[in-house]
């Protein structure tokens, strides 16, 4: 039972982080490798603030700060890096590749700053009032932060799904994914929508950052990279661009990892996510939740 709760919380963290990755990959063809650095830097900003103020800051304030930082960072990434590339690249493939490399370059900036400030050591956010609460249900107990993580993840997943399905902007973003040129002719602005998508992506990375920093007690400047690799798997399992697929993919991945680390020595745990990526893409390339557009074959 304890293991099941662990897997659900872990899966929620993967999902919250992976939602932004899935959104930008699925609709804008951007594989954003700076997502992990944004995640880390949002948590790192909260760490700096709690360090300086020595005060108890409520979790929701920290979450808002982290989401703002994340949103600003990814918005800057879109405007300063992705937009010029989209304008200059000759083909879609060139643009995909250029944006991937540029996001790697962009990721080194926040990671280096954090490494220099912390002198390559882990940092932790401790002075929050919320992180200590516990609930007991018979033999099992759940901490407040675990409940918050699961609740926020569900809320973010539902909100993103509804936004993409119901709103004008969401529909425009999906249209952009199917045919950029035609949707351009219909008056859909790619730059505006890609900015919106990256703001959402950054905010969810920020939230994941602050929650995971509290849940795991500490993060390192390199934490984002490990999570990025897991998120790839979650996105691919569920099907790129599928919101519910990302949630299911994250849960399958977390369940599989928990199972493997409980039954083997632990050194094989990392293989789970990579094996899932290979199997899914070779056997059912559109993931468990098929999207409208199939561009993989």
């Amino acid at each position, binding site marked *: 039972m304890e293991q099941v709760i662990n897997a659900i919380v872990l899966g929620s963290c993967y999902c919250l982080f992976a939602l932004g990755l899935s959104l930008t*990959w699925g609709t804008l*063809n951007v*594989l954003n490798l700076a997502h992990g650095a944004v995640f880390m830097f949002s948590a790192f900003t909260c760490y700096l603030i709690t360090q300086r103020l020595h005060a108890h800051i409520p979790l929701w304030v920290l979450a808002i700060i982290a989401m703002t930082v994340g949103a600003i960072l990814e918005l800057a990434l879109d405007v*300063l*890096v992705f937009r*010029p*590339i*989209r*304008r*200059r*690249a*000759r*083909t*879609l*493939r*060139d*643009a*995909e*590749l*250029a944006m*991937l*490399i*540029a996001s*790697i*370059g*962009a*990721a*080194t*900036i926040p*990671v*280096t*700053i954090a*490494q*220099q400030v912390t002198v390559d050591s882990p940092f932790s956010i401790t002075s929050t009032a919320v992180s200590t609460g516990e609930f007991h249900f018979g033999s099992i107990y759940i901490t407040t932060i675990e409940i918050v993580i699961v609740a926020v993840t569900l809320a973010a997943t539902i909100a993103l799904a509804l936004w993409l399905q119901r709103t004008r902007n969401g529909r425009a973003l999906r249209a952009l994914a199917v*045919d*950029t*040129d035609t949707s351009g002719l219909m008056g859909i602005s790619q730059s505006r929508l890609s900015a919106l998508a990256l703001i959402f992506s950054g905010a969810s990375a920020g939230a994941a950052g602050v929650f995971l920093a509290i849940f795991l007690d500490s993060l390192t400047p390199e934490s984002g*990279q490990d999570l990025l*690799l897991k998120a*790839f*798997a979650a996105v*691919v399992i569920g099907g*790129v661009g599928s919101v519910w697929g990302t949630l299911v993919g994250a849960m399958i991945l977390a369940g599989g990892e928990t199972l493997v680390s409980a039954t083997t020595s632990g*050194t*094989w745990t*990392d*293989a789970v*996510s*990579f*094996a899932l*990526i*290979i199997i899914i*893409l*070779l056997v059912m*390339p559109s993931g468990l939740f098929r999207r409208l557009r199939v*561009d*993989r*074959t």
Partner: protein
Amino acid sequence: MNIWYEAHATLFQTTAIYVLLALSFQVVLKSGIFSFASVGAFGIGAYTAANLATRGVPVVVTLLIVVVAMTAVGYLLAIPLMHLRGLYLGMVTFAIDEILVVVATNGGKVTGGAVGLFGVPLEITTLGLGLVAVIGVLLVSQLERHSVGRAIEVLRGDEQLARSVGVEVGNYRKLIFALSAALGGVAGALNTLNFSTVTPGSFGFTLIVAGLTMAIVGGIGSWLGALLGAIFVAWFPTVSSSLGGYRSIVYGVLVILVVAYEPDGLLGIIRWLVRGGRGRLARGRPAVPAPAGAAPVGDSLASAAELGRPGHDAAS
């Protein structure tokens, strides 16, 4: 000069190894195949060389075995990956690389587990490294001039078009995978033979990032780009050591600037400088954003015409 050379001998060795890895990335990327399998090949080559060299196999034989084995592996790997394109292919090859790292970590005696293998006999000289790198460069540059190279260029621009002018897309993909794997494998083997150690950490995510950066920042159009990229990645930390801990930021900003503002990479910038700074920095840039998934019609026809194959005139 001599003292300076001796102080930087390691950097020259690293550059030679990186050139081969960059070429390995370049040949696939140039063909429009988004594959990171080069790093997996690097890993297999590195461990194969370590095992052969410790058993007293001569360097030349070791390298030949690695070339033959990796060519076969690359060719066979291309078959199940036939139908994957774009970022999806990138993701699978990335996962294959990372699984190899986990396998190496759990590999027992053959791979030395998490600490890796060390004390491999140092049997190759810097001159030898340079020679192998030159052979790799010659191979790729000759390919560029050959009709194969021109077919590859069309393949990158527009696969449908390539098919329509009689390019056997499937066969080319297999050959390109094989060539890329052979180059990557040799780079890995040389790395082991030169530095005498190999660890699981030496060919993971970090090397994928380094290899991609070299190929793209240098410029994927020509072997010269791979050379420039290898020099950039190998020498940057030393050259910029006066910047201290924050030099990685300069590196990141340089990578972004080159990639975002010059699609032809460092090679494009140097060609622009050679032209005396005349003309636009990036040549052939379409005035309007390119349509999704295909080169602008004008470009496609031009590159098809360059193929120059009688009876396959795309313009007619």
